[in-house]
């Protein structure tokens, strides 16, 4: 499965379009991390716990997107985009979407 955010892959040809595939993941942070974040808000610096949390959720979203693409029989997802939105206090939605296609060597 090839995942890229460019529209034309060099050396390959699109033989079939399968339409949009998407995956999302909603995560909340746990209290321990909130307390650490509160401290960091005084001293400044990177919030490593949050960085990892968001990275994990994004990987989860991509995984779901890939599962959907595999279900429709695609072998690549082109033009992938990410989007983040906070839907409630302390929870965030990470969203990934792209176009599922079948690629063939030229």
């Amino acid at each position, binding site marked *: 499965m090839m995942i890229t*955010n460019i529209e034309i892959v060099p050396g390959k040809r699109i033989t079939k379009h399968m339409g949009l595939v998407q995956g999302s993941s909603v995560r909340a942070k746990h209290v321990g991390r909130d307390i650490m974040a509160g401290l960091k808000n005084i001293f400044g610096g990177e919030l490593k716990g949050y960085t990892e949390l968001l990275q994990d959720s994004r990987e989860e979203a991509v995984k779901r997107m890939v599962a959907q693409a595999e279900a429709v029989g695609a072998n690549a997802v082109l033009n992938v985009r*990410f989007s983040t939105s906070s839907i409630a206090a302390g929870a965030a939605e990470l969203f990934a979407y792209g176009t599922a296609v079948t690629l063939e060597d030229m």
Partner: protein
Amino acid sequence: MIDLGVFLTLLALGYGFGRYAELKHYKSIIQREKELNILPAIAARTPPMISKACDCNLVTGNVVISVDYFKRFISVLRNIVGGRITSYETLIDRARREAILRMKQQAHEMGAKQVFNIKFETASIYKGKRQQVGSVEVLAYGTAIIPSQGG
């Protein structure tokens, strides 16, 4: 009186640690940017049409950076008179450059030669008691072009 003492202590702690963290971070950013200069990150949407087949892979880099107490206090003052909030500008600058570096590092480990179609996504993920921006998340992503093993 105690409140004022706590406030001043927090301000001093924020100033001291925040400044130290920022200087250290900038030093490491500049050093790593030099090391990863061999790997250009390009904002062009499509790579040049090369006949050789190559592999593409999505690479991402993200970072969450928090502002310190002193900077937040300065920005509150700035809100009264208006104008540039330099303390937040350096925060965002640090976050963006760090995100690009992490993305490049990931591409470098895959053996990529270039990264195309860089996109940024910025979100404020934590809000303080008075709905101020506490920290920002920056995500940088792009497509790493890896020359095929066979060719």
